[in-house]
């Protein structure tokens, strides 16, 4: 397939199979409902895109959520003005986010290191604050941008009169409810994954990795690195815009809180948790984080009591109390602890853990350790 290595083809095929069978194998974990699966796919896109910037070039953006938010707004406006079909909406959001990223990236990439992080953070916070205050006519401020009965929806009106009530979103005519929504998002996510894979393996991707390992040397060799970094930034912004657009397709609502810096921090968490610079890492990180956020946080006293029912009452109460601090409302605590543990012990994220286990197994099986080592990420 397009001069891909056998290993890449295999990864892609297995990954596709894993993703498409998610409704089956996630059922025992209580996560196999369409809304959550859809979120898994959307945030995976976000994280894959973030990884194209951070993983390949090493530029740590702390303002990526701005593009997600912009994408959402663009998609909802497309619903309001033109049609309820999601395809136009996501095209619209990708383009808007891309333009946004071009402007912000052009300015921010003049600096590197922490200065770059602060610049992106500053732009994202500005967008967030403006969306809340001055830009209310466009963003509808704190309420968030919503569909309304008086929307023009020009293209839809050409084909028929507006029905009663608010219409729901479609994607190429498919109704986005239930598992259809998940499969549409999954298909888009797989395409994005494939593209990211191609980018990482392309000469362009090599250039980006060169920027990460030593930008000065790249410059001395005669490459002007800025356009490459900017291209990575814009691509990554477009991924975020696409994710934002899909969020709006899943639920036609856009709010400014999607642009807040904590949302930007979240995608950083996802990427680091899974493994920076790896293909699968960010996806896994996104899934884990969203799983925590949606399932772990719903654990309550009753479920815990049920799970520890085998213990005698005197023991169960303290045990349930201790666990209760880490689940439900306290899921952020678990997240913080897991995240710290990963950064301290596995700086390469969970993917490095997988590699290490692999290495141990291979060594146990005789030889092959050296081969595993060649896949290590280049050091910073």
């Amino acid at each position: 397939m397009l001069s891909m290595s056998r290993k890449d083809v295999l990864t892609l095929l297995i990954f596709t199979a894993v993703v498409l069978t998610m409704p089956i194998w996630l059922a025992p974990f209580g996560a196999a409902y369409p809304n959550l699966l859809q979120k898994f796919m959307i945030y995976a896109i976000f994280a894959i895109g973030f990884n194209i910037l951070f993983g390949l070039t090493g530029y740590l953006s702390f303002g990526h959520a701005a593009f997600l938010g912009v994408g959402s707004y663009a998609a909802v406006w497309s619903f309001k003005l033109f049609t309820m079909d999601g395809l136009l909406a996501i095209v619209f959001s990708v383009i808007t986010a891309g333009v946004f990223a071009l402007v912000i990236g052009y300015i921010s990439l003049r600096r590197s290191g922490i200065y770059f992080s602060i610049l992106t953070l500053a732009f994202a916070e500005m967008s967030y604050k403006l969306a809340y205050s001055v830009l209310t006519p466009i963003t509808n401020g704190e309420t968030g941008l919503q569909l309304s009965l008086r929307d023009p929806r020009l293209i839809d009106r050409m084909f028929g009169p507006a029905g009663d009530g608010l219409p729901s979103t479609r994607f190429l005519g498919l109704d986005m409810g239930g598992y259809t929504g998940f499969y549409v998002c999954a298909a888009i996510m797989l395409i994005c994954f494939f593209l990211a894979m191609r980018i990482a393996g392309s000469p362009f991707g090599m250039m980006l990795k060169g920027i990460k390992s030593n930008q000065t040397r790249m410059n001395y060799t005669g490459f002007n690195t800025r356009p490459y970094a900017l291209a990575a930034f814009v691509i990554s912004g477009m991924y975020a815009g696409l994710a934002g657009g899909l969020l709006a397709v899943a639920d036609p609502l856009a709010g400014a809180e999607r642009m807040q810096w904590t949302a930007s921090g979240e995608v950083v968490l996802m990427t680091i948790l899974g493994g920076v610079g790896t293909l699968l890492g960010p996806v896994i990180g996104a899934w884990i984080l969203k799983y925590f956020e949606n399932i772990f946080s719903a654990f309550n006293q009753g479920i815990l009591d049920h799970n520890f029912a085998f213990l005698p009452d005197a023991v169960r109460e303290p045990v349930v109390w201790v666990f209760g601090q880490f689940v439900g409302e306290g899921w952020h605590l678990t997240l913080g602890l897991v995240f710290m543990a990963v950064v301290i012990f596995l700086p390469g994220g969970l993917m490095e853990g997988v590699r290490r286990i692999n290495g141990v197994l291979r060594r146990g099986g005789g030889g092959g350790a050296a081969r595993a080592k060649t896949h290590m990420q280049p050091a910073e």
Partner: protein
Amino acid sequence: MEAILLQFLNGLDKGGAYALIALGLTLVFGTLGVVNFAHGALFMLGAFCAVTLRNLLLLEQVTVDPDQLTPWGTPLEIKTPYVIAWFGEFGNVLVDYSVPISLVLAIPVMLFVGISMERGLIKHFYKRPHAEQILVTFGLAIVLQEIIKAVFGANPIPQPMPAALGGAADIGAVIGLHAGVVVYPWWRLAYFLFSLIVLGGVFAFLRFTTFGMVVRAGMADRETVGLLGIDIDRRFTIMFGIAAVVAGLAGVMYTPLLPPSFHLGMDFLVLSFVVVVVGGMGSLPGAVLAGFLLGLVQSFASMNEVKSIFPGIDQIIIYLVAVVVLLTLPRGLLGRRGVMES
């Protein structure tokens, strides 16, 4: 004129808070070379020292008065805080001044928190890339704020200021303007003076003590100082503790101005990083200068006259200033050459 003076005063206390947090951040960065994203959490912990002390002071004893009956016919239970029961009038004073008294509690607590944080975690991250330092301290900040949330709940807990400082000072009358035009709350004035004292104290400590001299030498060239037989690591650890104390004290005194809640630290973190970067990474005077500057700029931007020309400017001015400074002065206002440059 009066309006400008008022906004100037308004900017001072906020600037004081920014300067204190940024000073601590810069101390940590300048000595240990660590970018500490948990610094906002230290500010928040300081604020919750004040909350804890007040809760302790308000622990109540219940006495039953058999002569008086409640409307339900049961004997009336009278609740009085222990301190008031024990010390009478003096107890009332203690409760009233709980916030300033918390400073005394906050110093050892924050010193302990800071030093154990440095020894337990930060120590292992000296040699790691800045990105990993940011991430691990970010994780720590989440953990700290969640612990506070589990203990104190998610709602902001208002802390009253001492009654004597509750009113407002008529500054305008003092300098000869009409009375009642430039009115400024006493507590904000106190905060500003307090921040000046702490800032002065830290600078004097670094400038005029042997310990401070060694630390400054270590900031300039850590290796050489180490070669001279000085245990520089231990001093830097203590500096981390001092930075934590500064952040904590800033947090304690800020509680009457903003009821502390668990995400207070995160709210201030972003701004204080902007302050540090605008001031120049690693420059202590830069951090202080940028702190007050941004406080003042923000205050002036929220004047109605300015807002009518540039709507929404008060929301974004700090970030706008940060962007402009970073693009025109790559090292910030007073940054040194070669610090955090690639």
